[in-house]
């Protein structure tokens, strides 16, 4: 069997004809396998969804009770038969519940990594290398320019800035699922135990993480108590970056905008976004991690999905590894 016969791109997403399912489809389908809860990968409206328990929970939190017709939870490492195709879920280290999906038929093994990273993250299970013939990798940061520094050092910058500008409210932009909780956890691990204020969009997901045993410390709503005449002087406020352009941000004292994202590696990106304090904290692989993963797995073929496909494909060619871009559309990289 040729790998393309087992799994190939369609306008709705990666499709497995033998199993009759899609992986992370971008439009409603009959049967979907979902790698993780970011909204560009996990959409509502599918008839049947197979995903990890945590991903299903997150989809319910984001889309409501009727986010799909019928759900089925997959435990890490357990195999599930879908119309004669064997599938299994393995930790991807991206966000809570994130998984790689292995698809096996007639001895041919394809691993869809979804989004993944190799760095240590106390808020989710670490990436687990899974042997395969075809490795389908993301390439969000697939350029040699991306070398993510240690996240602890980045959090150090935030805490230094709080000392330098004790009167300013430090607004930390972080996407609602995964990045926000990771940043808060990192802040706690750095020894900061004062309250962290959060935007309303983060509340339910932070509660869920807490429920899953990831302690986030004293979290409070970043809402104004009129009586207290509070202006969040010197406080850390975490929220989705889009909120900082909103009137919502006016309640804070001389806000200093920080943004936790892998994109912050490039200075112009930070500058254009009006970010004063870029924190290079990413839930994706940087360039060396992408290369190390491919070397470690040593698959027969590499397919590259969303991101900067051309550079990673070029690198594979130079290494003599068969590689091709899949040109999937619809993944806007909510997670970084």
């Amino acid at each position: 069997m040729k790998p393309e016969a087992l799994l190939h791109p369609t306008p709705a997403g990666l499709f497995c004809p033998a199993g009759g399912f899609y992986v992370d489809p971008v439009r409603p389908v009959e049967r979907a396998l979902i790698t993780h809860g970011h909204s560009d990968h996990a959409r509502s409206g599918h008839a049947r969804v197979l995903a990890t328990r945590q991903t299903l929970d997150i989809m319910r939190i984001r889309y409501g009770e009727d986010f799909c017709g019928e759900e089925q939870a997959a435990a890490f490492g357990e195999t599930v038969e879908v119309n004669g195709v064997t599938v299994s879920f393995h930790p991807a280290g991206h966000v809570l519940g994130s998984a790689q999906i292995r698809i096996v038929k007639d001895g041919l093994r394809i691993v869809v990594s979804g989004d993944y990273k190799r760095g240590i993250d106390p808020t989710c299970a670490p990436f687990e290398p899974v042997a395969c013939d075809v490795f389908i990798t993301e390439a969000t940061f697939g350029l040699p320019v991306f070398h993510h520094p240690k996240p602890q050092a980045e959090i150090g910058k935030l805490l230094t800035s709080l000392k330098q500008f004790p009167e300013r409210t430090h607004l930390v932009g972080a996407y609602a699922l995964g990045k926000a909780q990771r940043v808060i956890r990192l802040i706690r691990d750095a020894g900061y135990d004062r309250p962290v204020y959060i935007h309303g969009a983060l509340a339910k997901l932070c509660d869920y993480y807490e429920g899953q045993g990831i302690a986030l410390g004293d979290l409070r709503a970043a809402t104004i108590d009129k009586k207290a005449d509070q202006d969040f002087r010197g406080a850390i406020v975490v929220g989705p970056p889009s909120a900082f352009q909103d009137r919502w941000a006016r309640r804070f004292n001389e806000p200093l905008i920080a943004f936790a994202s892998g994109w912050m590696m490039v200075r112009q990106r930070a500058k254009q976004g009006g970010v004063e304090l870029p924190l290079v904290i990413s839930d994706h692989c940087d360039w060396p991690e992408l290369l190390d993963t491919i070397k470690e797995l040593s698959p027969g073929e590499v397919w590259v999905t969303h991101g900067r496909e051309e550079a990673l494909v070029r690198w594979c060619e130079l290494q003599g590894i068969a590689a091709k871009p899949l040109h999937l559309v619809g993944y806007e990289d909510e997670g970084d």
Partner: protein
Amino acid sequence: MKPFATLLDRLVLTPSRNGKITLLVDYFRTTPDPDRGYGLAALAGTLDLKGVKPALLRELVLERLDPVLFQYSYDYVGDLAETIALVWSGGEKETVNEEAEPRLSDVVTRMNALGRTETRAAVRDLLDRLDPSARFAFLKLATGALRIGVSARLAKQALSEMSAECGAPRDITEIETLWHGLTPPYLSLFEWLEGRADRPVLATPAIFHSVMLANPVEDGDLEKLDPADYAAEWKWDGIRVQMSSHGGTKKLYSRSGDDITNAFPDVVDAIDFDGVVDGELLVGGTMRSNSPTRTFSDLQQRLNRKTVTPKMIADYPAFVRAYDLLFDGGEDVRGKTFLERRARLAQIIDHAPHDRFDLSDLVPFHDWPTLDRLRIAPPDPVIEGVMIKKKDSVYQAGRLKGPWFKWKRDPYNIDAVMLYAQRGHGKRSSYYSDFTFGVWTMGDDGADQLVPVGKAYFGFTDQELEVLDKFVRDNTVDRYGPVRAVRAGPDFGFVLEVAFEGINRSTRHKSGVAMRFPRISRLRTDKLPRDADRLETLLAMIDAGDG
């Protein structure tokens, strides 16, 4: 290198002046000698570092990286130094530990000690031993492209505040006076700023002396003053400079003490006197050579350059219109009256080369209304108002109220229509506070259309900003990154009264005009966009200005 690299990273993204000063003070207080002195020199533009050619850097990076991958990276980042800092491999992740990382002073001394054939290996080794942010700082220093929005003046302001925090407050004018007599890494300067030593003794002559500044005339200021006590001069539209010449050392400084000697050899070489002279730098001909003074936009051709070509000098000859004297030879005359200093200055200028120096004329007047009429209709288009100076005033650095006034020609005004808005920074990051505005002109199809003529981000009050911001949010028709396009047609839109100091032709802007210091002077909610001005009106202002 790490503290300096971190400082640069923060400064680049910190828009507010106070924020920058806080970061600078913190750096100067926590970084040891001699690193902080070299850091200061790098910021103030006095650091001498052996340069590295971009071509060499490119070769070095391609020793280890596929050219196609490098090109993809460069296309994405857009800046050579930053691309190399980011893609460089073999360094930081594998080997660098913080204690072993070279210090800024190590980098400077090592680079400057290199022979010609050693550069390649040394740069490669440094790149290997620095982390990405330090690599970026090093590459920016070595390619001479450190642009981070910090002037020498701002760095000195930070030094002054640092000294206050150390319990030994030193005024910025004192720092400026010392500045050009000191060299990196400024050990004696920091000792003095921290109150650990006396004021450094200067060995170098021809230093900069802080200048005396004027206050704008405000309502009611002049009524209280006797016109007989004051002299008036034209206020020429050039830049304020100080010529400092002592025993063969000749320097030209900007008003903030930046050394601009190398950019104006035509003026500096012509200095044949000893002393310190205050004046206006202009291009064109002196009064005595009977050729006209040229506009500020001509002068701009000569500004912000490290060096100058013979063609630039021929096309845009510079000269100084002198108006005050601080030192006559070695004698400090700042304690003498304005009229006494001026008499001595007249002597000096009379003997100086006629094509490079002249004396700023006094403007005769008997009462304030006469001067007001002269101010409004000056005899030369390059005059932007009058200066009023008390005849018996001494020369005192800083901006004292009373001895010197500036009385500018009224600004130009137009009514324009808001076209685009961009979010501001810091305190204003949730407000649309940078506005691009346009005026009417006939399009190619014969129909009237709005063409952008400028951008303004101040002049309005906080209450007015609320109004402007609400209009932008309620009337957005398109978004481009941080920019929003707003509804603007003949019958609906926002009319802004824009005030500005001058207007020139420009090939860089689609409309063909460029304004100086535009600001929003009033919100004309009473007007419809159809009533706004036309491009022809602006072009007529240029023609009138050119005389």
